[in-house]
C-alpha cells in the first residue's frame, strides 16, 4: 500500500509539471488556434538559460532569467515568425511551428552536446519521510510551484482584463477585434506566458531523480502533448486533468513495471499515449474540449 501511495504522489507531482506545459500549449491554442509544436524547444531554451547562469548568478536569479528568457524566445517566435503568417491557414501555421522547433532544438542540442547540465536547484536529493512513505523534496517543490502558478494563471484568466481579452479572442478573433482587443498583443502574451511556464516545467523535469538537463529533455516535454490533447486542446481545465492523468499513468506504469514485464520494457513512456488513444476513442474532442459545432 505504501508503495502505491508513493507512486501515486510522485505521479501527481509529475503530472502537475506536465500540466504546466500543457497549459502553455492550450493558452497558445486558445489565443491563436495554432497547435504549437515548438513548445518542447521553448522548454529546452528556458532550462538551458537557467543551467548556464546558475553558477554565476545563483539559482533563484538564474531561474528568473531562465523564465524571462523562455518568455522572450516565445514572444520572439510569435513576433518574428508567426506574425508574418497572420491570416494563413491554421494548419500551415502549425507546420511553421514544426520548422521553428527543429531550428531551436538543433541549436540547443548543439550547445548542450552530450553534457548533462545541472540547474543548481537547492533541493538536491533530500527526501522527506512521512511514516512509510518517502518523497523527494524536489517532487514536493514541483507540486507546490505548479499548483501556485496554475492557480495564479487561472485567476488572472478569469478576472483580469488580459484574461477577458484572451477569452474574447479565443471565441472569435474578428468580434474581439471589433471590441478593440489588440489581437497581436493577445497572441504575443500567450506565447510569452507559455514560454515562461515551460521554463518552470524545465526545472522540475530535470531535478532529482532525473540527472539533469540533456538533449533528451525535450522528449520528456513531449508527454505534455497527450496531456493537452486528451484534456481537450482548448480547455484549461482539460490541460490540468490531462496533465495529472498522464503523470499518474506514467508513474504507475513505471512503478509496477516489474509486474508487467510480459508487455516488455519502457511501458511508462508508452502509457500516456495509450490513455490518450483510449480517451479519444470515446470522446473525440477530449475530456473537456469544445465539440466542433457547425451552425447550418
Amino acid at each position, binding site marked *: 500500500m505504501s508503495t502505491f501511495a508513493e507512486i501515486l504522489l510522485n505521479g501527481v507531482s509529475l503530472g502537475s509539471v506536465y500540466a504546466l506545459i500543457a497549459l502553455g500549449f492550450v493558452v497558445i491554442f486558445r489565443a491563436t488556434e495554432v497547435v504549437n509544436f515548438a513548445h518542447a524547444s521553448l522548454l529546452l531554451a528556458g532550462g538551458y538559460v537557467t543551467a548556464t547562469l546558475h553558477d554565476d548568478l545563483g539559482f533563484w536569479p538564474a531561474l528568473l532569467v531562465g523564465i524571462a528568457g523562455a518568455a522572450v524566445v516565445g514572444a520572439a517566435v510569435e513576433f518574428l515568425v508567426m506574425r508574418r503568417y497572420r491570416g494563413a491557414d491554421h494548419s500551415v501555421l502549425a507546420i511553421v511551428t514544426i520548422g521553428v522547433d527543429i531550428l531551436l532544438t538543433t541549436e540547443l542540442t548543439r550547445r548542450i552536446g552530450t553534457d548533462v547540465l545541472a540547474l543548481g536547484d537547492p533541493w538536491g536529493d533530500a527526501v522527506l519521510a512521512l511514516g512509510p512513505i518517502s518523497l523527494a523534496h524536489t517532487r514536493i517543490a514541483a507540486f507546490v510551484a505548479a499548483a501556485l502558478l496554475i492557480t495564479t494563471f487561472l485567476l488572472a484568466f478569469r478576472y483580469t482584463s488580459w484574461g477577458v481579452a484572451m477569452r474574447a479572442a479565443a471565441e472569435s478573433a474578428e*468580434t474581439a477585434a471589433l471590441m478593440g482587443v489588440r489581437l497581436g498583443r493577445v497572441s504575443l502574451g500567450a506565447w510569452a506566458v507559455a514560454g515562461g511556464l515551460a521554463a518552470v516545467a524545465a526545472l522540475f523535469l530535470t531535478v532529482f531523480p532525473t540527472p539533469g538537463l540533456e538533449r533528451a529533455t525535450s522528449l520528456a516535454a513531449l508527454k505534455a502533448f497527450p496531456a493537452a490533447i486528451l484534456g481537450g486542446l482548448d480547455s484549461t481545465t482539460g490541460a490540468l486533468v490531462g496533465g495529472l492523468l498522464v503523470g499518474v499513468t506514467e508513474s504507475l506504469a513505471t512503478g509496477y513495471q516489474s509486474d508487467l514485464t510480459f508487455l516488455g520494457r519502457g511501458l511508462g513512456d508508452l502509457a500516456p499515449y495509450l490513455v490518450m488513444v483510449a480517451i479519444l476513442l470515446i470522446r473525440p474532442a477530449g475530456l473537456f474540449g469544445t465539440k466542433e459545432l457547425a451552425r447550418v
Partner: protein
Amino acid sequence: MGGSGLVVRDLSVGYGPVRALRRVSLEVPEGAVVTVLGSNGAGKSTLLRAVSRTLSFHGGAVTEGTVSLGGRRLDGLGPDRVVAAGVSQVPEGRRVFARMTVADNLRAGALRADGGRAGRAAALHRVHELFPVLAERAQQRAGLLSGGEQQMLAVARALMAAPKVLLLDEPSLGLAPLMAERIADTVREINTQGTSVLLVEQNAALALRLATRAYVLEVGEVTLSGPAAELAASDEVRRRYLGVVDEDAAADAEQAGGVRRTLTRWKG
C-alpha cells in the same frame, strides 16, 4: 460637408477580384440616425467592415476612398484604434461571446474605453439602465440568453466603449416583431443620449422610421439617397423595400390559408 461626424468618401472595396463596393459616399452627421438599406449581398456589411477595419478577416481590402470621423482619417488604423477613436460596431448575427458571462462580455466591450475605472462604471450604469435584464443575468453565460437578449447584450457591449458613432448591422434580424420594436426604441434612446447611429437594415420600414437620412445600396453602389421621409414616400423604395410586394405576399398567404392542408399520415 466633411466637418464633424462620420464621413465615407468614394469608398471602393474588393474581395480579391470581386468588387463589393464601388465609390460609395455617405455621411453620418453628429447626433443623427442614418440608415443604409439594401438587399442581401448589396454590400451593407462590407461597408461596416470597411469602417471598422475588419475586412482583412474576410480577405477584403479597401482599394480607394477614405473614411474619417470628425475630420480624422480612420482608414489605415487597426480595428482597435477605430474603437478607441469612437466608432463601435454591433456585428450582424449578434456575435456575443457565448462561453463568457454577460458581465465579461460587457467588460470585453470596455477594454479599449478610456476614462478608466470611473468611465467603465458609468458606461455599465448606462447600459444597465437601458437593459435592466443584463444586470439580472450578469453572471449567466451569454450563450444561454434568448435571441432578443443576446441582441441587447451585443448593443450594450458596443456601448461600453462609449462610442461617438454606433454601427448597427441588421439588429432586427431573426427577432420577433415585438423584440425588433424594442430594439428600435433603444436605438432611439441611445441616439437621444448623444450617440450618432449608422443603421444597416433589411427591415426598411423600421429603419426609415428611425432614421433622418437614408441611403439605398444596390450591388455595391449607392443608387438612392435623401431624407428618410422622402425616401419612404418614393415609389422606388416603396415597391422594393416597403412592401407592395409584401402586401401581395400577405394576400397570397391569406388565400392559401383558406385551403390550408394539414399533414396527414402518409399511407404508403
